[in-house]
């Protein structure tokens, strides 16, 4: 165990290369329980479940690629990844934040109900399915790049923002928005999704209503973009007057009509 200093603050370093996940995570749990508030995991290469179920205010910095279910079911930690994350980052998390300088895999933020996930790059499929929100700590997921199919399916609360920072948008009205895949927001019955650019009607099937806005007109959207920019040290001021499509549920009961409720 060694200590290093990052940004003038002492951090405990865990050399993670080749350490099986169970040992690595036991060590993290032990140190967090002992009151360590800043940990640096060096050489992480696919270890799963890092930070799963942890509580508290500790900050975890990860160098390398974090494995599946990073920060799953956690409540309160602040995780910063210098690299990519595999599937399931922030799965069912209820508080805290995960900031990823690279890209994220599938099921990022599945069923999260509180806290913040900021992805600088792209995110995979099934992202933000069944997101919810708690009153004291709203759930938000901001993706700097693009997202795959099934984004925000069954969404019940919280906010998803897709910025597409490096992706040029098409100008023709009916051409596909390249930032999203198929089945965007199907079954959505709560929360809000903002996608940069216009989305042609054919690209949305589901029970949502759409509108156009800009960060300038929509302070909540601008707030999330500013938090994203601050968390990842990026300049997003150019987005202030960009067009975004805002998706909201048409109703809170998307499937009620499919059933015969009579007694």
């Amino acid at each position: 165990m060694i200590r290093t200093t990052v940004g003038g603050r002492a951090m405990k370093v865990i050399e993670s290369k080749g350490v099986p996940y169970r040992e690595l995570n036991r060590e993290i749990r032990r140190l967090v329980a002992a009151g360590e508030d800043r940990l640096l995991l060096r050489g992480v290469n696919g270890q799963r479940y890092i930070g799963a179920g942890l509580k508290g205010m500790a900050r975890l910095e990860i160098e390398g690629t974090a494995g599946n279910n990073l920060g799953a079911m956690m409540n309160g930690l602040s995780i910063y990844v210098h690299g990519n994350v595999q599937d399931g980052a922030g799965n069912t998390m209820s508080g805290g934040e995960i900031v990823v300088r690279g890209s994220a895999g599938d099921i990022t933020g599945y069923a999260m109900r509180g806290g913040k996930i900021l992805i600088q790059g792209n995110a995979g499929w099934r992202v933000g399915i069944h997101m919810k929100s708690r009153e004291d700590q709203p759930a938000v997921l901001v993706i700097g790049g693009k997202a795959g199919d099934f984004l925000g399916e069954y969404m019940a609360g919280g906010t998803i923002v897709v910025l597409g920072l490096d992706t040029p948008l098409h100008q023709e009205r009916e051409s596909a928005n390249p930032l999203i895949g198929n089945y965007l927001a199907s079954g959505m019955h709560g929360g809000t999704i903002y996608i940069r650019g216009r989305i042609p009607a054919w690209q949305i099937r589901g029970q949502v209503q759409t509108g156009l806005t800009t960060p300038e007109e929509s302070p909540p959207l601008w707030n999330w973009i500013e938090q994203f920019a601050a968390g990842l040290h990026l300049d997003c001021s150019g987005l202030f007057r960009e067009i975004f499509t805002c998706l909201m549920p048409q109703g809170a009961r998307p499937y009620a009509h499919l059933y015969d409720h009579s007694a």
Partner: protein
Amino acid sequence: MPRSLVPPEFLVHRDEGRCTKCKACIRQCGFGVHAEGPDDRISANDQRCVNCQRCVVMCPTGALKITANKEIGRENAYWSAERLREIWRQAESGGAILTSMGCDRNYPVYFDHLLLNASQVTNPSIDPLREPMEIRTFLGRKPEKLSIAGPPGEERLAGPLPPEVRLEMPVMFAAMSFGSISKNTVLALAKAAKRMGIMFNTGEGGMNPALGPFRDHMIVQVASGRFGVDSAYLEAGRIIEIKIGQGAKPGIGGHLPGEKVNAEIARTRGIPTGADAISPAPHHDIYSIEDLRQLIYTLKEATDYQKPVAVKIAAVHNVAAIASGIVRAGADIVVLDGLRGGTGAAPKMIRDHIGLPVELAIAVVDRRLREEGLREQVSLVAGGGIRSSADLLKVICLGADAAYLGTAALLALGCHLCQRCYTGKCSWGIATQDPSLTKRVDPEAGADRLVNLLTAWQHELKEFMGAMGINALESMRGNRLQLRGVGLPQNELDQLGVKQAGEAM
């Protein structure tokens, strides 16, 4: 609006001679059947009646009677009244018909074709009133071997055992969420579980703070909607149960209708008030056995390997292979929910036409796990249609460690099996969130009734075992020699692993 072709399912008969117009029926009915007319007469709207019997039981003068409305046209052996009604209803609504509780159709009930054994002369029976009978059981992963360390005379177990949960009798209350049932009903179950030394299950609706004192007897469920799942919830449960499927609706998700999602439930679940609480059909982070393993180990990591993780599936045709995969994925407890398993709401066609009776499911899974040398590693829990202590013991003889009770527990609390939980209008105050109805279940009095039921079953269980000359539940588990089949063809006997009645040991 065109006139409905759907005839009422039940007819309400009021004996005008006995009726004192006290209006108790009007107050008691959650479905708004009874109403006072302009001439002070109380009349009934048969169309709304679900035959829950609340008004009949509560009428102080016994003036009410409800009968099935059988005269609805030329029904025949093929086109039953129920089929006719379904078609008329769907022709009007265009929707899948919803229902509640377990499959009620006339499929074979294997419990009713199995008989238990008893001792006579050659080995004595045991008097449970005199001898101690061991009906305690432990759920969780069993180590493959025990290592002992220490100097002679002071030997100790080397290393910790995997986490185990003790049940004072081999039953638990099945998963019923706060949302599908009322808070008072959940509290009654929790109190009874604590008093009996068994477990209750939160279901997938998260944990109401009022359940704090009962956490040592609580199983917390993680279902596809992940409602209320956070680190505090996982910490609170003694067992964590991943719900993959439910016997009443195998392979499909669940929708708690918005009518039942009041502010408190919305808060517990983290969704908008009045929104449907939707549990998707699969967990979208589990598309394979390998993915299941990841969720199992995520939960184990999140709780520092301190709690057994159960996986509950609906019993389906390939259940033995699936259960084997679940054990290999790392589950400590496998729960099989059979065809008769109940629900707060399910499409009727799904409930009534998918699945496997739990008797067969337990028998084939127990056999498969034994063949593969896995059975001793895990606990097997049966759910779905356990109606009596006899069913309980039979399912244990077929291979279960314990059984879940859902419907039986609700019946003990006053449920009359009207199968309308999905409406949220339950006149018995069980499957509703309407405060004027939920107060009808008193948690303390309800717990007393549940404790009475289980105490009676406990005694019957001991009588059964004593009669067989067996004094420990351990010796009953998978003990098919204590069972014989009657009226079953050979292939069914083979699947159950049971001999024909008349065959000796």
